[in-house]
């Protein structure tokens, strides 16, 4: 039923402003059905998950976040959330591998934590991806943590995704030996496997679609598995094709529109210029729909499964996320 039955780690990237976090959240809800447990992770310190789900800011630990979207037989799963920040990940890493209790604090005093998490090339990314790896790796988890059926990562934007996931190769070039190197190899094994899919979100505009195409090429070159393309914020289709053409050409029937408005009790407004406003709305919509269609054709040429989500004019609230989750599942993404 799902297009991605073997995927355990869903990485969601996309150009800034294309709804990456929204799509990641909706996908997590869509994957959590029939008793399945899903972990939704964010790594960019924005607390976007907490805002979307209207909960307290998330700590550096897994929290139960929501009930998933019920499946066909009415059974839902659960969504947990994890906010990964590099400082906590570093201290945890040191504690886990080296039992560095005292040194951990010393490191902080000497500015090493700050150094390692913000300045040392790639260390920040490897700490973040390392934590994700712990949650998503095959064969359960160290320390008796909860095992998830799927992990959804709200990842950095397209421009940084290869570096973020492939950071290990870059870092490995620097760190020719050492524990990070050996952990990196295991992580790359997972990220490059069929258990991972990197999905890209876009909107039907020129730059984001171009960036999606570039992103897919870069992911392929890096040997990372490209998932689907989620087209977000698609305009409503309130005008049929024949009306759309007329709206674009400015040949919609003014008299008919005026007549309908009067019949609906809007005679005063119709006389005050509502007809013109509506026709202009129609023209504007038609122009944008045509531009969308051009970009949709380009998305189809990318040769990846594509999923479309509507623009929610009132903004995305919790109800909206479930609505989007339902649409993703209907289209086979989950």
């Amino acid at each position, binding site marked *: 039923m799902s297009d991605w039955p073997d995927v355990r780690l869903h990485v969601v990237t996309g150009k800034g*402003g294309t709804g990456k976090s929204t799509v990641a959240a909706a996908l997590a809800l869509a994957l959590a059905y029939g008793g399945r447990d899903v972990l939704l992770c964010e790594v*960019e310190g924005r607390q976007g998950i907490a805002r979307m789900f209207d909960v307290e800011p998330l700590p550096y630990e897994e929290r139960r976040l929501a009930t998933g979207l019920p499946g066909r037989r009415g059974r839902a799963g659960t969504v947990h959330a994890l906010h990964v920040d590099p400082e906590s990940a570093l201290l945890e890493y040191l504690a886990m591998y080296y039992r560095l209790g005292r040194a951990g604090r010393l490191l902080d005093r000497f500015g090493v934590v700050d150094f390692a998490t913000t300045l040392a*090339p790639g260390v920040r990314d490897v700490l973040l991806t390392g934590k994700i790896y712990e949650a998503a790796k095959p064969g359960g988890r160290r320390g008796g943590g909860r095992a998830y059926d799927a992990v959804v990562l709200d990842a950095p934007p397209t421009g940084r995704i290869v570096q973020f996931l492939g950071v290990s190769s870059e870092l490995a070039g*620097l760190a020719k030996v050492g524990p990070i190197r050996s952990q990196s190899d295991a992580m790359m094994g997972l990220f490059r496997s069929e258990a991972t899919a990197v999905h890209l979100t876009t909107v039907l505009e020129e730059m984001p679609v171009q960036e999606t195409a570039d992103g897919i090429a870069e992911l392929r070159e890096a040997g990372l598995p490209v998932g689907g393309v989620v087209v977000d914020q698609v305009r409503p289709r309130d005008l049929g094709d024949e009306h759309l053409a007329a709206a674009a050409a400015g040949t919609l029937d003014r008299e008919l529109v005026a007549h309908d408005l009067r019949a609906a009790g809007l005679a005063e*407004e119709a006389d005050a210029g509502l007809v013109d406003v509506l026709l202009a709305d129609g023209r504007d919509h038609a122009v944008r729909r045509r531009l969308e269609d051009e970009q949709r054709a380009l998305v189809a040429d990318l040769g990846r499964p594509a999923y479309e989500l509507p623009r929610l004019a009132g903004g995305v609230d919790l109800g909206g996320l479930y609505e989007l989750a339902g649409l993703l599942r209907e289209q086979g993404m989950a």
Partner: protein
Amino acid sequence: MSRGRPRVGPLARTGDGTGADALDVDALIGDPATRIVVCCGSGGVGKTTTSAALALRAAEQGRRVVVLTIDPARRLAQSMGIEELDNTPRPVVGIDDAAGGALDAMMLDMKRTFDEVVESQASGDKAAQILANPFYVALSSSFAGTQEYMAMEKLGQVHRAAEADGTYDLVVVDTPPSRSALDFLDAPERLSSFLDGRFIRLLLAPARGPARFMTAGVGLVTGAVTKLIGAQVLRDMQTFVAAFDTLFGGFRARAERTFALLQADGTAFLVVAAPEPDALREAAYFTERLAEDAMPLAGLVVNRCSAVPTGAEGPDGAVLSTDEATTAATRVAKRDPVSVTAGLLRLHADRARAVEREGRLVERFSAAHPDVPVVAVPALAGDVHDLDGLREVGRLLADG
């Protein structure tokens, strides 16, 4: 349904005497005292387009302008003649120079800028040694924050050159697409405090020799770092730091000079946002941060606002609210389910809902920051990839 209902949304609020003042973009770029305009904001809000449009408008009004862009869309870059990432300002062809202005554009190459700083601070051999160090290569090309730092460094360079030889009287600068809008303010400080900070001194100690500095605590720390990143990286870093040592003072002085430049009277910040909660939240943080650092904020630009389509600004009575339009659409559709009028009314309702929502978001920003002038720019139907498109954006910026 009454007439004279006030229009809602960000586009209706400017100039109506309530809330914040409207941002007067032409007054800003027309003031000869304005020497630097910095456009900042979170990623994906149209900063690059806004900077380019402002620069073009200023040039066509007679200023001699250079615009520093970070990562323009390919076709926009082509139309401005800056396909090469080479740190060299090039004249933009096709601008209207009747008012005596000119426009140059350049795309920032952060690694090249970093290399140039090293070359300017160190003698030949030493510079070559630093440039070849693996740690330097990683730091200068992929360290998060380098791009922000170098954007500000380049701004400082271009500004100083322009003031010295009078090539330009206005520098417009785009900021990198950071995770957070604040990164570029923090990056210079972070990098320079790292480069001459305590930790680096610590790393330096063994390279310099005397083992007496190696107290137990220090040993523990370097030991932990070695475990974490491997001995080779640590050695590269020590070599780098040793070679870089004499440059630290210079780096810090440069960062401080850039910071002072950003606080100067001739500098104006424009915070760019989209009418979305996240982008406006970033804009609010940024506004507060600028105030803390005594940096001059000219105003907030809200791009991509939903608006009444151009050419249809009728009397207010001709615009329905979301509820009115939805009700009317339902009524019309009852008689004819595929009615074009019902479809148009639904589109109208959809837009009204977006306008209402965006208006609320911007009003909230203004309630918290009443002193920040705001301009709302309606969304264009297509992408901007030529000078005419930029002129249109410039006109919308100025008209509010």
